[in-house]
């Protein structure tokens, strides 16, 4: 049978992130919209749905690309420990 799978993303309230909520299958885009509404919106739980043909989703999982092994701490908040340095500056200033 010639059914297509669509991935459905759901925004639960205005301004919120569109979160992947599951998938549906439908023979074409028009019915895909209907079925997405039924499966992910019939309780009024969504203000927006994105219905995307699965064929159009590109997946990237390669850890060599996503979790490279060397240090990248300079890119994150956790990479900066400032408390001791600040204390030392203050101590120097009070001493002067």
């Amino acid at each position: 049978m010639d059914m297509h799978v669509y991935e459905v993303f759901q925004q639960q309230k205005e301004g919120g992130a569109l979160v992947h909520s599951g998938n549906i299958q439908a023979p074409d885009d028009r019915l895909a919209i209907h079925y997405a509404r039924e499966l992910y919106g019939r309780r009024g739980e969504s203000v927006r749905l994105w219905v995307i043909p699965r064929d159009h989703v590109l997946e990237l999982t390669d850890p060599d690309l996503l979790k490279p092994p060397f240090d990248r701490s300079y890119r994150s908040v956790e990479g900066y420990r400032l408390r001791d340095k600040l204390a030392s500056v203050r101590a120097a200033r009070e001493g002067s």
Partner: protein
Amino acid sequence: MAVETEATIEERTQAFRDHVTSGGKVEMTDWMPDEYRRSVLKFIEMHANSEIMGVLPEREWINRAPSVRRKLALTSKVQDEVGHGQLLYRLAEDLGKPREQMLEDLMAGRTKFHNVFHYPTHTWADVGIIAWLVDAAAILSQKALLTCSYAPYARTMQKICWEESFHIKHGYDIVLSMMNGTEEQRAMVQEALDRWWGPLMQFHGPPTPVEKDKDLAWRIKSKGNEQLRQEFLSMYVPRILDLGLSIPDPNLRYDEETGRWQYTEPSWEELRSVVTGHGPRSQERLAFRRLNYDQGEWVRQAVMTAS
């Protein structure tokens, strides 16, 4: 996996096993051992079958619901179960088995569905007891799947558990309304409970040693059969007794010393016989499913060809 190496299937399988036993998750597009794929698929397929077979006994009351509100609630509950069937069959399809094949296998009796859906319904009280207690037993099993190693299944269970929470309240509401009603209504509830208690006690399956339960080893489910039954009894025996209903098992009691419920051993022979298609309504329900499936064949064809 990180760097392509010449790992043997055994090594990959062992690494996979370590991954899931330490709480790791598996996604649809990840490599997985065939045995794992088969186990998850079989588990999900039976769950999906149970959803769409479970609609049949309740569906019999869709036209007979005694008020506008009950009519709407019951229709929407049955609709939810069809929706859950759809979500679960989609998961199974993504694991490699086409939906038509799953439906064919179900209707031919090659795959199973839960024991409770092989029994007849007699009165409106059955609708209340099913929605309250059968759904309660089911939701305990389903909550134990929220930590499933197969992540798409775990995510689907979150949605399903959320939707099911209204089913139990709807069932409890029906039972409470009838218990507040006439003498006959109360008697109807007691009779329904008497009918469903046996199948309810069998629902979670016979106690199985943890080491023999493959689904536990693969972290597909997180709780054993007996543990789920004990949880069910702890939660629902007090609520049932609270309504002035009596439970048809003279041996049922809570043992303070062991911290466990004692009960009359359910008939595992009956359970085995029922789920292999020899229950009081097994063949009738499968035939009804088949009839409607066949009658819908031209519609499915038309949808495909016109698109």
